[in-house]
């Protein structure tokens, strides 16, 4: 019997910290603009001088809006068979970041705009090696 490994869906986007899961990005110290994923420079045309610092975001946010993916998404999205529709949305985080993400729920139709959510790191799908591929999701509180 093999043990299930967990692998992130992409490198450097999130991590489990002592305080819980966080999204990893950056922030410009001069104009305050948050970036996710990380950005090497500030792209704000109003910013006088790019001063990028590492920043992490989470765990709380508010669901700006949401939708249900009723049909299996085309590649490069991946999913497990049999396909089960999932909820996704855009979340406003108090750090000033508006970010996309899956919503962690067994009942996509119950999700409401304006819901308070928290960041979780969960399985996106099981890959061909039997490894759990992990992504960030938002779970209604």
């Amino acid at each position: 019997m093999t043990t299930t490994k967990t692998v992130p869906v992409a490198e450097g986007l999130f991590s489990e910290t002592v305080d819980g899961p966080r999204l990893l990005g950056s922030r410009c110290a001069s104009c305050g603009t948050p970036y996710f994923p990380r950005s090497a420079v500030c792209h704000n045309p109003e910013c006088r001088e790019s001063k990028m610092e590492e920043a992490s975001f989470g765990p709380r946010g508010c669901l700006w809006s949401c939708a249900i993916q009723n049909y299996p998404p085309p590649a490069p999205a991946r999913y497990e068979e049999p396909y089960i529709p999932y909820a996704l949305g855009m979340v406003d985080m108090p750090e000033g970041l508006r970010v996309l993400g899956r919503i962690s729920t067994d009942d996509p139709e119950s999700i409401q705009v304006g819901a308070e959510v928290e960041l979780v790191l969960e399985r996106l799908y099981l890959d061909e090696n039997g490894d759990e591929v992990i992504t960030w999701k938002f779970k209604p509180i």
Partner: protein
Amino acid sequence: MREVAAVGLGMHPWGKFKDRSLTQMCREAVEAALKDAGVAWREIEAVAAASSRFSGGKGWGLNGNDIVEEMGSTGVPVYNLSAGCAAGGNAFNIGYTLVASGLHDVVLVVGGEKMPKGFIQTSGVEEETDPEYLRQRCVGMPGPAFWAMLCRRRMQEHGTTEEQLARIAVKSHKVAKHNPNARFRKEFTLEEVLGSAMVSYPLRLFEICPVSDGAAAVVLCSAEQARRRTSNPVWVAASTVATARFDDGITRGLGGMVPPSGKTYHSEAALAVSKAFEQAGVGPADLDLVELQDNTVYYELAFPEEWGLCEPGEAERLLEEGETLPTGRLPINPSGGFLSFGEATTAMGVFQVCELGWQMRDQSGPRQVPGAKLALAQTLGLGGNGTAVIVKR
């Protein structure tokens, strides 16, 4: 800048044409536009064409070169313009600029495309530095889910109902029935639209535009040439291009900033439209009709408000009172729109100008907006590209 007129309008019908090549379709549209203008191919001084990543163009988006080779290589300058779904609008702007600047007197603008089946796929770039790749890979959010999310927000803010969304599709097909170039010319009942498959809640299959094959062409010329060639030129009052602003409230990648003030969604489209009003010296109240990019019914509600054509939250009422029909106060997409044509992505900006032109000439048959004198068209494309055109008779 000089005055510019559209004197030739030509369109190949929209649909799925397995047995026709893109070249054949473009040739048909170009020949129709030339004939309409009374211009010979040899008289065309420059070509501005929309670049496609899906068909023709030798795999490099050289769609204008394909057309020149097909029509006869006269040595004319060719400009191939790439701007995602805004490419047709972008090509039109370059054609317009070439004439307005005085560089050329007679210019051809063309857009034609044959689309692969199914929903539009992502770029195929599989790199973690590509924001679109990350969005699909990490979240799994295709275009329709993105539109659905915007629509859901509107439902929350304005109480928009699923029935109202369906009514927009019913309206589009009701007018498209009269358009010989439309792909879907059958009326649907509210029940049929509401009974179509849920693609991404709250949006259903009949509320989202499919992909199509299509081609359209426009001959533009100077005022002097126009007066010599036709008694009913369509004047181009404005042609503008814009890109999205940094503070846009809709993140195009995985994340962006919460916009600091108010709602600025689709800033590329709003900017192009506001610049067009300024260039034409007109305002929203002067418009007789609008052709806007309805990839989904949601945009028929959102765009008019974002451009100041109606008050926030008013779009649903205008719809229900029939004011967005060709006979209403604010006719929207009397062509039948993308919903009834399907999207031949890079041809749409040119298709819209043909539709506006026929309206200005009173040639739109049962879908004619009575007495139409001033009209607006708009496109929106990947990469934050927006274009707008205002024509007048």
